[in-house]
């Protein structure tokens, strides 16, 4: 077998997933530099216009162009998800490694805290942190990262525990390598595969959480658009101006679909059984 590590198999699901995510990233990139209208520009005369040649996806209650907002929202939503996942992953890996490495009391404390966090509804965590940090993008990233870190810790920790027992970690010990070196050289890199799988899944959950937070009034504060707060804000107009909710909803659903499909492909790729064939 050749080194096609991320050479994904040409399954239709993976292709579709890749396509969707490609389009998403493109849109997010585009949204950062260009949108047809200013996504924040208010137009008193053009409120709640249905989709048409002038405003492709219509306008919202402030007369803002929905298409521009969806584009601009893509970059916000994607960057929130990306940063959250990145933060949760990095923190989770470090803590999980420490717990798995130090064991004993450190481990017991880490387990108690992660259990407590897992048993804690995310909403309060989000509200608490948002209120302390100010309701903004960074607060949300931090709050959601805190909510998702325990899952990473758990996965990494249990992986470290089982990796410690594997032959190659023992082999490293027999070579006379120090524990820290062994952790860095052999344990850490081998945690990356399961964490990657977890991270792809998490990306989708974060996207959903962000919109659910907006729905409960705790999301990224308007007027900056995210798909979540666009969707949440569309609620009063659901039957009057359905396009307000349908497009951001569709964006979220399609992104999630893409991520899930891609995640499945990555998982298949990383499955040791698949690798052995």
């Amino acid at each position, binding site marked *: 077998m050749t080194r096609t590590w991320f050479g994904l198999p040409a399954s239709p699901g993976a292709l579709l997933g890749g396509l969707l995510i490609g389009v998403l990233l493109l849109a997010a990139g585009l949204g950062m530099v260009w949108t047809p209208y200013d996504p*924040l*520009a*208010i137009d*008193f005369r053009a*409120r709640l216009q249905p989709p048409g040649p002038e405003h492709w996806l219509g306008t919202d*209650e*402030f007369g803002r162009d929905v298409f521009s907002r969806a584009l601009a929202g893509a970059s916000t939503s994607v960057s929130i998800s990306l940063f959250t996942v990145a933060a949760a992953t990095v923190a989770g890996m470090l803590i999980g490694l420490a717990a798995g490495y130090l064991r004993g009391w450190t481990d017991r404390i880490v387990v108690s805290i992660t259990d407590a966090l897992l048993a804690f509804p995310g909403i309060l965590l989000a*509200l608490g942190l*948002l*209120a302390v940090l*100010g*309701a903004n993008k960074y607060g949300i990233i931090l709050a959601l990262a805190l909510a998702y870190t325990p899952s990473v810790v758990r996965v990494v920790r249990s992986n470290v525990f089982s990796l410690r027992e594997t032959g190659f970690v023992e082999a490293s010990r027999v070579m006379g390598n120090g524990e820290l070196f062994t952790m860095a050289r052999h344990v850490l890199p081998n945690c990356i595969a399961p964490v990657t799988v977890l991270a792809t899944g998490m990306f989708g959950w974060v996207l959903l959480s962000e919109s659910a937070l907006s729905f409960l*009034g*705790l999301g990224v*504060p*308007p*007027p900056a658009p995210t798909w979540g707060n666009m969707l949440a804000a569309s*609620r*009063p*107009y*659901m*039957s*009057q101006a359905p396009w307000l909710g349908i497009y951001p909803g569709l964006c979220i659903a399609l992104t999630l679909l893409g991520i899930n499909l891609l995640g499945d492909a990555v998982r298949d790729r990383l499955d040791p059984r698949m690798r052995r064939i």
Partner: protein
Amino acid sequence: KAAGDDTVRVSLNADIRSTTPGTNRDDNTDAVVLHVVEGLVAYRENGSVGPLLAESVEISPDGKTYTFHLRSGVKFHNGATMTADDVLWSWNRYMDPATEWRCLSEFDGRGRAKVEAIEAPDPQTVVVRLDAPNALFLSTLARPDCGMTGILHKDSVAADGSWIGPVGTGPYMLADWRRGEAITLRRFADYASLPGDADGFTGGKSPKVETVEFLVIPDASAAKAALVSGAIDLVPDISPADREELKDNPDIEIVAAETMGLNAILFQTRDPLMGNQKLRQAIAASLDTAQIVHAVTDGNSVPNNSVVPTASAYYTDVQRQGFTYDPARAQALLQEAGYAGEKIVMLTNNRYQSSFNTAVFAQAMMQAVGINVELEVLEWGTQLDRYSSGNYQMMAFPYSARLDPSLSFESMMGNKDEQPRKVWEDPEALELLARSMVVTDDAERQKIFDELHRRLIDQVPMIMLFNGSDLAAFNSRIEGYRPWAASKPRLWTVSIAG
């Protein structure tokens, strides 16, 4: 619902907090409880105070003694007849700190008034003596948030003083309260009504519907859906957006009324930047009030730059003179102010759509003249905290309804050293306000309010925008429902068609 069903179902956006008047309450609690209990005096539709359980009130020339002559033949829900003893008993209960009456401090000398004595020379008369004249004594008694100082029968509390339930004199009796779900009221057959039409909380009340059910529906879309599907009959406060949607529905009727709330943009005049009066004037000139109000309320409310509500009896041509929208002048004022593009943060919240939308529109207009303003959207509890500590530069803020202009002014005026939440602390204006609270003559008071308005427009400690309106939507089988300035649904005016 089946025809002939003698129940009106009304949505409430939150459960009531208790059934106790003036204690542990919020707007919804007041709305429900004031169907059950009544006070000696009550607000009329224009914000003036009229007698309710009292036949008449005499004020002594020195303004310190109030004599209430009680109406005869008024029955409590348990059948007992109301007498001066019941008034004394109720008053003493309110004045007991253990009751935790929210308006206790208004009458025990810590606040504006001190009631030195209360006595009942005969069963139909109650005399109250104050330490000093006070123009607001009756308005305070009538305040909905004080529970209208409602007169209760002593059966309302148990022997140990704990609350059982309101035994009042109102047109409806409390039948059932399923927490978090619904409150059921039943018609009081022996209700003794004043003559004439309903006028605010006073006037004629002739309950026609047997049962009133308040259903707790926190979500506005859900309430709308329930109304459309016929699950409920009345939503007292739909959003302007919903009006657009419902107005073509033949089964639904919508009625609007201006309220006495104050929707405003507040400035922190002690902020180094916002302390600059020219800058504030520039901001005022940059805002097209009419445009904002039209957009925020979907044309349902009228613009009002004055603290005196449009529905108030004191709202005159003077109050109609507001800020002028003039971007060029705004820019000139900015120059004069020496404003160099410093960042200004405007707070708003995501609970009250009108505050939020106001902020968004105002931001756009201010940016148009070159003011660098940023929005910070807070959770309501947090904004309230910032408001009360005075820790902000600008904020879009909704004051709840005060029915007397003195109280409206008082809500935003005061010394910031004593109360950081106060907005306007011009000493001369404060003087005027203090006078308006003592003077009982209407013309005199009007003059004071006019003067206050002129100063407000000049000093711009805040920008009043509109009072807001209550949009009630109801099933067309309901007749006689009228929203009014106090934002409190009144079901005693309602009947069911056919």
